[in-house]
């Protein structure tokens, strides 16, 4: 395959790695959730991209079009978005509780308190 190949895949991989890096490197629990969201969204883009059929239109029945993009990946990603929202809200709810219990949302300070107790 010639370089650079399909450009959108490069964008997706860059987003994916950026998201994963934020999850690993950030100390703040909320920022970790943000990173997780970036990571998940890159996967949504991956799915939506692969549904595109070159030359195809949106998958809506109209006169005069023969070629449609594949709607199935879009539907799958609707489900995945719902899962993503549920995960994010649960994660944020846990952060609120963690903040109540520890008085901080910085990972290193939490670890310090846990090693003391």
């Amino acid at each position: 395959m010639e370089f650079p190949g399909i450009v959108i895949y490069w964008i997706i991989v860059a987003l994916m790695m950026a998201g994963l890096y934020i999850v690993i490197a950030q100390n703040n629990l909320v920022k970790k959730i943000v990173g997780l969201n970036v990571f998940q969204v890159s996967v949504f883009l991956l799915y939506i991209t692969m549904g595109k059929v070159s030359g195809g239109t949106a998958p809506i029945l109209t006169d005069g079009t023969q070629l449609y993009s594949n709607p199935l990946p879009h539907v799958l990603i609707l489900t995945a978005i719902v899962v993503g929202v549920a995960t994010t809200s649960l994660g944020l709810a846990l952060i609120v509780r963690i903040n109540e219990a520890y008085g901080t949302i910085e990972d290193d300070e939490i670890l310090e308190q846990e090693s003391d107790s």
Partner: protein
Amino acid sequence: MIEAQLPVLQILIPLLAAPICIFLRHPVATWALATGVSWVCLAIAITLLQQVLASGEIIYEIGGWAAPWGIEYRIDLLGAWVLVIVTAIGAVVMPYAKLSAEKEIDRDRLYIFYAMMLLCETGLLGITVTGDAFNLFVFLEISSLSTYVLISMGSDRRGLTAAYRYLIMGTIGATFYIIGVGLMYMMTGSLNIADLARLVPEVSQTRTIEAALAFLTVGLAIKLALFPLHFWLPNAYAFAPSVVTVFLAATATKVAVYAFVRIIFTVFGAINILHDVAIHDVLATLAICAMLAGSAVAIYQDNIKRMLAYSSLAQIGYMILGLSLNSDAGVSAGLVHLFNHAMMKGALFMVMGCVVYKIGSAKLQDMAGLGKRMPLTMAAFVLAGLSLIGVPLTVGFVSKWALIQAVLEKDGWWPIAGLIVISSLMAVIYVWRVVEVAYFQTPANGNLEKDEAPMSMVLPMYVLVGASIYFGIDGTTALEIAGDAARALAGGHE
């Protein structure tokens, strides 16, 4: 006609019961509902197993839409068997849950606890019955999200951070899994597992499918806590409410192993992926590291729930080692261990639930004199502990024997049999530490008065202990089913 609908009822009944719990709110009423539902689920699972044994694989098309366009539920022998394991644990845990949960969870949040238990069971059962790779992801997330909530309900604040860390790891794992499914869809245009098994071999030499396999393996390895992706597990098990730990330890990782088997042996079965790619050696190496590291770290734990969690990591190592052997004997040993470990680890965590109920601590030093104070509970610990070690006449022996035999079948693999024995000897050490403190030390305050846990907790515990002895003496039923399931899986690449 109802028989034909059983595969979907298996999922729908607990799924619908969960929101009803939210409406009922009354702690005892929700408990009664959850218990009833868990028993109905067990009855359905046993009926399904009988149907599968009598007439082979069951295929159920959701809404009458034929696969690969519709979602189908597909229950083969392995699936039916995992259903029975999960529902049986659910049915034993629910009666036990009442007192234990009342003690450890706020009374006004109990209804959420039962709703989440039911949702978690729904997710686990869904993973087992579904024949669709994307549907599997949805059920995986249903079970995971409810698990995060369950873990955070513990009275210890460390439960919150354990739940948060598991949420991060679990979401990364599940997302890796959908990346893998997406890449397979890209090459084959199908999400149906049986259909994928047919289509993947044609394109198996492409980089896309190789990347898909890598993502699927890593994603599921996080979910099943394979060394070195296990960091979420010990704290999650140690600080979750005791009942939750019993249920998760006995079912959640088992179902993740099942999903892994589905991907590796069903989807990639026809190209015999374990043989062609180095994944075989990688899995075996990681499994052995898990066996040794898990057992070794378990020896140094003061919190006994945490100790048992590390022991679980070692046991997962045994299962994955069996699977990575990629022979009928190896796979069936791994699957038998899946069943056996569910019983013994369930029983052991139930013991800890009783201990926490009575003395409010899972620390080793607080357990002094418990052999006299809670004789029934500690006797159960000894029996289940013997099974964990692998003493003859217990289930632990059956599966370890099968595993060692399978290892010896492979040329040049005999040193691994030695490592299995070493890991078992380490289990002797960590089980003995507890026995020694409980039976041969007197507590600082000299209190040796008998103070047994309530019968509603002791009885379910002894059901599991009894089962682990019964199947240890008569291991043939489980071995036969696992053997048949392993041969059916291997059928893909012959």
